């Protein structure tokens, strides 16, 4: 084993880290070397040569992660835990069978205020935001004038007079710049909108026993909070939290936005339940892939349209008529006309299939490329997402993937690969 290629495709820019030419590189990315010798008071420096040039940002749980045995890696400019003491597979399965906590404080949380906040949001995203019920949220997309995807995000229409928006850490700079620019335009036109970026921490609590654990800390009846709905709440005695029933694992779960000064306390309270364990970015990635969820930077980016990305459902029915979102003139016609390539799921056995693996037709022609892939801990098969020529996009189509210079059979598969358990009441 000369060098281990650590494949950390967990969000934002979809990093694929090639370790330096001995195992040391892997260690430095994943383990003690990243934090061991620095008791830095301000931003950790990422010691991986040529990896990050700036100091990594820390979430309010940074020290806590290290105390809990977290192996920290640099990710989207943040120092984040990739796993703790349990193995990747153990952590993944624990989430599917019990409950795991993920620190997702690196993601950007935004509040949009003002009478014209819906109009403002709709000027940036593809969804029908006006039709959202109070406290209902939806997955949506920021798009470019050319029809590409700038980021995927969740927009929630709260009953508190603001929209609550959560977007990817790796896109924080471009998203916030875009929103600020649009805000300036709206204000200049005399419209009533305002925006604030939040300092709150954000933790995801995911898994079948989430409800039983969290209910103990809530006055509100969790059985009434269905998938993609949100509420303010006092959680385990901590006021000012927002609980949204959503997540990135396919399991029933919530994301809790909590004052930064109290997130450690909340996490410790949750961990005091035997059902609950901490989980890191490693299992976050294998869980979301099993659930068929895209990773921005890998599976969708500014070169993919929502139609190519098989995300037509995000485009609001009204918006398809009014064509009033960026790139609509390119995207809307694609819905009828179809596109040359499409994002599909695929399944194989044998050597694992990873990002950039070529996809071949049965007679060996290159017809696409894998954008995300990993061995599925639940299915014990290899799962992947990629783009293929549309002729091969139907579920069940036999294709091949080229792994280590050999063509290996694969099958186009529907997603999610593992059934989801979203709570509908």
């Amino acid at each position, binding site marked *: *084993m*000369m060098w281990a290629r650590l*494949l950390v495709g967990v969000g934002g820019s979809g990093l694929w880290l090639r370790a330096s030419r*001995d195992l040391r590189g892997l*260690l430095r990315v994943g383990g003690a070397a990243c934090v*061991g010798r620095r008791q830095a008071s301000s931003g950790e420096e990422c010691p991986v040569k040529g990896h990050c040039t700036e100091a990594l940002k820390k979430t309010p749980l940074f020290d806590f992660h290290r105390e809990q045995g977290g192996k920290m890696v640099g990710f989207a400019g943040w120092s984040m835990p990739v796993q703790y003491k349990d*193995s*990747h597979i153990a952590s993944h399965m624990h989430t599917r069978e019990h409950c795991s906590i993920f620190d997702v404080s690196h993601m950007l949380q935004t509040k949009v205020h003002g009478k014209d906040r819906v109009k403002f949001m709709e000027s940036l995203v593809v969804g029908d935001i006006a039709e959202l019920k109070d406290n209902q949220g939806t997955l949506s997309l920021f798009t470019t004038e050319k029809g590409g995807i700038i980021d995927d995000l969740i927009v929630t229409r709260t009953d508190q007079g603001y929209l609550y928006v959560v977007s990817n850490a790796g896109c924080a700079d471009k998203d916030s710049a875009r929103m600020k620019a649009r805000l300036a335009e709206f204000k200049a036109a005399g419209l009533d909108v305002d925006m604030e970026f939040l300092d709150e921490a954000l933790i995801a609590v995911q898994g079948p026993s989430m409800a039983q654990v969290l209910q103990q800390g809530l006055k509100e009846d969790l059985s009434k909070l269905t998938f993609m709905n949100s509420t303010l709440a006092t959680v385990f005695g901590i006021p000012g939290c927002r609980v949204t029933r959503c997540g990135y694992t396919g399991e029933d779960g919530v994301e809790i936005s909590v004052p930064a000064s109290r997130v450690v306390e909340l996490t410790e309270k949750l961990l005091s339940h035997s059902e609950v364990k901490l989980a890191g970015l490693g299992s976050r990635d294998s869980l979301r892939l099993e659930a068929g969820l895209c990773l921005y930077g890998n599976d969708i980016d500014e070169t993919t349209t929502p139609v190519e990305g098989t995300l037509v459902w995000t485009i609001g029915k009204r918006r398809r008529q009014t064509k009033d979102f960026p790139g609509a003139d390119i995207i809307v016609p694609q819905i009828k006309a179809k596109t040359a390539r499409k994002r599909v799921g695929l399944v194989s056995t044998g050597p694992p299939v990873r990002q950039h693996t070529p996809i071949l037709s049965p007679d060996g022609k290159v017809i696409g490329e894998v954008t995300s892939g990993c061995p599925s801990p639940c299915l014990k098969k290899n799962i992947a997402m990629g783009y293929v020529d549309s002729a091969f996009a139907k579920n069940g189509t036999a294709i091949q993937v080229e792994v280590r210079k050999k063509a290996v059979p694969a099958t186009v598969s529907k997603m999610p690969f593992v059934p989801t358990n979203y709570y509908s009441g």
Partner: protein
Amino acid sequence: MAACGLLRSLSSNFFTVLPLLNRSVTLSPLRLASTPYFGRTITTSSRVTADLKFTDKHEWIRVEDDGNGTIGISKFAQEALGDVVYCGLPEVGTQLAQQDEFGALESVKAASELYSPLTGEVVEVNTLLADNPGLVNKSCYTDGWLMKMTIGNPAELDALMDEAAYDRYIRSIED
């Protein structure tokens, strides 16, 4: 063999609950190992690892009674790799020169090529790993062996590290 069963030069950073062992106890790397602690290696002496020679690419080789060599990866390597889910191993009969790539191990998040410690011919491959790749993690020095090969040039063994040298090597790259 020196101080068989005694724990060796543990740095104060290690936490360990390893018992003091004596020769009459059958030693397995699993019983010697505390909970794997990423980036650290428990330095131990055992009858299992004391027979091994190590490469700087974290493979080990054990010369068997029949003169062939059994090859696997070290505890340090399997910890770094994580749960092995796939073993790509060579076909029996493959001729390998020292340092030739002979296969790969993959975990959920990482992949690593395997390099032949010696020159020789592959005579056996661990077929148990097809259905149970986790053996590489659970039992990297015994049941998780990867392949067996002839030893075409025994002098090559002399250039490999013994256990003590390998332990020092690991500590040097961790720093």
